[in-house]
């Protein structure tokens, strides 16, 4: 199990099995959206803010 540090609140977050690069996870401590940028090694960064033309 890989652990990452939330760049917002420094909480330790465990990446669950099956997590993929490009996936968005939510920090369980501060609730910020994080983008998984790499699995090996595990890394996250703050997810981009929602833009006006985002959607389906």
């Amino acid at each position: 199990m890989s652990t990452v540090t939330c760049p917002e609140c420094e909480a330790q977050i465990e990446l669950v099995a099956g997590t993929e690069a490009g996936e968005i996870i939510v920090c369980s401590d501060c609730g910020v959206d994080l983008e998984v940028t790499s699995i090996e090694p595990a890394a996250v960064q703050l997810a981009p803010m929602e833009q006006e033309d985002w959607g389906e």
Partner: protein
Amino acid sequence: MQRRLKIGVLYSRVRVEEKWIFGAMEKRGIDYDRLDDRAISFDLEKPEAWQQYDAVLERSISYNSGLYALRMLNAFGVPTVNTAAVAEVCGDKLMTSAVLARDGVPQPHNVAAFSTEAALEAIEAFGYPVVLKPVVGSWGRLLAKINDRDAAEAVLEHKSTLGSVQHSVFYIQEFIEKPGRDLRIIMIGDKVLTGMYRSSEHWITNTARGGSGELCPITPEIEDICLRASKAVGGGLLGVDLVEHPEKGLVVNEINHTMEFHTMQPVSGLDIAGEIVDYVVKVAKSSDQ
């Protein structure tokens, strides 16, 4: 010997839908590339890099990025799901309404105006309440239910002053007293795959806004209106949103060309991602002949 197909999947975020799609690709042993739209570029003098794909599935979260990628891919002769022409129509609510009106597909009463004065006049002619929608936008963002003239004047001024130029295309729609729900129907090619009711206490019933889903049986009426709607916008892989209008019956509210199905897949029990992948392969094979 038959050449092995190569598929591209253009995406921005690996949402659960993309995970399911990637999984379905891998389950079928398909040769595919994951194309992050933030990392790619198009050299217009070197289309070969893109022409290796027999088809590209577009799942961009940004309408603009997805649309321009589709335009370039289609210009390079690369088949896409959906086509740029379909994305142009479906991504713009006013364009969607225009083609639905052209083909006589039932829809809410809509009016477009390009100045706050003309918009206010149109709103007054409707009577209150009315709904103002941005022509481009999803997830129920920036929808405004206008209950009186004071609100109309304020929202129109805010849109024209604070918004981009696109917000000065005023798309005005009758407010429909719907029964607390709308319908999301998934179309694949000329087939109605499945559908669900989306319920919410709020007048915006989008599941991205907290609406919940329940399986909707596909009636002949639903099938007919969805087939006509799909044909009007150019067909493909579509999420058709229907509303039960108290006088008109079923009407098409909007049509999504990169639909999300994280609620629909578990509600329907169908492998929607697998159906999507099979459709993309079909498109790729038909272009390979």
